[in-house]
């Protein structure tokens, strides 16, 4: 079972370049999320989408954008990367956005901005 697939698994990127992190789920979940994980800070929500066609800002949205054209895909774009965006990025999904649903996570993209 695939669940959530993230690509690439890792990337080194020059500052100022743009990049799109891909996330695809095959569970037909309505809600999807992007988090970044940094040592000592846990996971912080970047953007979310409660259903296809809608998106919202999380705790740390600056410098990132998302789109949700269909149920399965939720790409995250860095328009002009900066070194502080070096992190591990996780995509997640849940059946619905309601509070009692657990989230399912991909295995992450490790991004280094030089």
């Amino acid at each position, binding site marked *: 079972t695939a669940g959530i697939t993230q690509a690439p698994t890792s990337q080194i990127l020059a500052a100022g370049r743009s990049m799109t992190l891909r996330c695809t789920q095959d569970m037909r979940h309505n809600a999807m999320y992007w988090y970044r994980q940094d040592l000592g800070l*846990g*996971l912080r929500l970047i953007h979310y989408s409660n259903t296809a066609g809608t998106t919202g800002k*999380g705790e740390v949205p600056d410098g990132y954008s998302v789109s949700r054209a269909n149920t399965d895909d939720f790409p995250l774009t860095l328009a002009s990367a900066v070194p502080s965006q070096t992190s591990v990025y996780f995509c*997640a999904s849940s059946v619905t956005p*309601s*509070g009692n649903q657990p*989230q399912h*996570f991909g295995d992450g993209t490790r991004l280094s901005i030089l």
Partner: protein
Amino acid sequence: AQSVAQPEDQVNVAEGNPLTVKCTYSVSGNPYLFWYVQYPNRGLQFLLKYITGDNLVKGSYGFEAEFNKSQTSFHLKKPSALVSDSALYFCAVRQSGNTPLVFGKGTRLSVIA
């Protein structure tokens, strides 16, 4: 605002001994509480959740957690630790509705043979 605290960065326990990973939370209203585990170079895996009802919740891999409303705690427990339980554990909370899930900073559990 909702928040989660995991007061221990690291917990060490001998194999076969009981383990506890602590979590306290702050929300207005009734909380939805979750525990996740993360193995190296992997995403988070759902372990268990408390929504309502029985204060003792049982989850995957023999883990359980006890919801204590008066102490606003949701500690993760296992009666007998295994070396394979060594991982990073995250507690998370959200209020009812579509509010964001808020994660603690994580506790690294090391089980020593």
